[in-house]
């Protein structure tokens, strides 16, 4: 139907004004590689640091920025790796508050298509929007609650709470998170599991799965409660307090 655009687009390919790599591009990459040798090639980075647990998270926050950088790559806690980066290395939220969460579905449909039990928080009631995205193999479900008198909206959007759920296959796929050094991480008990409460600055999430690094598009830039429950990674993003987030988590069913 729109095939007439194809030959036009194809013929335009050679006319695009592309930037050229700067002179010495490859040499500069190599120079950087050689100046910072891989510290732990082949190191099983996810398992080795597990035992260190919360103490490491707490400790790293008071290290100097240089030390943070050096150890961040080694720090793997419960399948969540935390990497400190400069603020400019973080994506900015999509303009217009678009959260880009996949396809709209109903809760019933999400339960049908997702490969895990989809839970909904009783204290908030039915979500205003439900989304299903295949950015994560086996699917990711997002529940959106819009701002209302008892739920303040997150900065720059009319969304108050965003809950995402996906099968957290921590043995194969890994989950990690970038944050700036001014963020804080607190380990908290969420429904009997170890979770993380991350506040303070923008951060974004990444997955490694089947040798691919998948960046999740940035969602709300707000506080995040993150934990794994029955093999499912759950995340609550909210402008509200830890207490509120825990109450939402407890009521998930």
């Amino acid at each position: 139907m729109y095939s007439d655009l194809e030959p036009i687009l194809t013929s335009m390919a050679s006319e695009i004004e592309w930037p050229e790599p700067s002179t010495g591009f490859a040499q500069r990459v190599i120079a950087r590689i050689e100046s910072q040798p891989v510290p732990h090639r082949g190191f099983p980075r996810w398992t080795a640091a597990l035992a260190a647990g919360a103490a490491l998270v707490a400790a790293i926050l008071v290290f100097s920025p240089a030390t943070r950088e050096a150890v961040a790559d080694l720090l793997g806690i419960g399948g969540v790796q935390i990497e400190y980066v400069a603020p400019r290395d973080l994506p900015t939220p999509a303009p217009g508050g678009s959260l880009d969460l996949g396809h709209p579905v109903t809760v019933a449909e999400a339960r049908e298509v997702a490969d895990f039990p989809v839970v909904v928080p009783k204290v908030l009631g039915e979500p205003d929007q439900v989304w299903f995205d295949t950015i994560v193999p086996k699917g990711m479900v997002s529940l959106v609650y819009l701002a209302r008198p008892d739920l303040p909206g997150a900065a720059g959007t009319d969304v108050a709470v965003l809950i995402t759920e996906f099968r957290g296959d921590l043995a194969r796929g890994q989950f990690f998170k970038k944050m700036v050094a001014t963020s804080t991480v607190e380990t908290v008990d969420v429904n009997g599991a170890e979770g993380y409460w991350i506040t303070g600055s923008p951060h974004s999430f990444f997955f490694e799965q089947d040798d691919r690094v998948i960046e999740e598009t940035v969602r709300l830039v707000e506080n995040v409660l993150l934990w794994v429950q029955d093999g499912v990674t759950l995340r609550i993003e909210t402008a509200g307090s830890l207490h509120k987030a825990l109450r939402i988590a407890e009521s998930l069913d």
Partner: protein
Amino acid sequence: MEGRPAEDNELVERARQGDVGAYEELVRRYQHLALRVAYLITRDEGEAEDASQEAFVKAYRALDRFKSGSAFRPWVLTIVSNEAKNRRTSGSRRAALALRAVRARPSGGAAPSPEVAALDRETHSGVIAAMNALPDRDRLVLGYRYFLDMTEADMAAILGVARGTIKSRISRAQARLREEIDRRGGRDV
């Protein structure tokens, strides 16, 4: 080396064993494509250059996790794409995709049918302008497919979506491009 150039996987294996020169060859091989992918995403030349450099450094460090026998190109381009997305700034000074300046022709218009060339030029400028106005999702799909001539497999990897969805994504993006062109009054395109 003489004869045929080394295969990507051969270079990857050598790089894994510490042959930095082999990795440099891979960087040279894909630097242009990497920069174009990063530029499509960031629409900023400096950010695109930084992102692709950083991506090649990160890819080197991640070589252990590269699955032997799989394709290096989509793997490294996925890292480039992620890095570029990270660097995307809030859009204050986004450049737009542009067409190369028309090459100066000898006076007297020796080029064949200059009217046709001019018409093409106008059409192409209209299409580029419409493309620049599309949301990232559509612009990237069209850019990867038509401007960078990527395979469906590469596109699926870089976009992080199932391969089976690529065709429909392309036709959806085309439809949106068509709408945008129409909206701009370019119905004759």
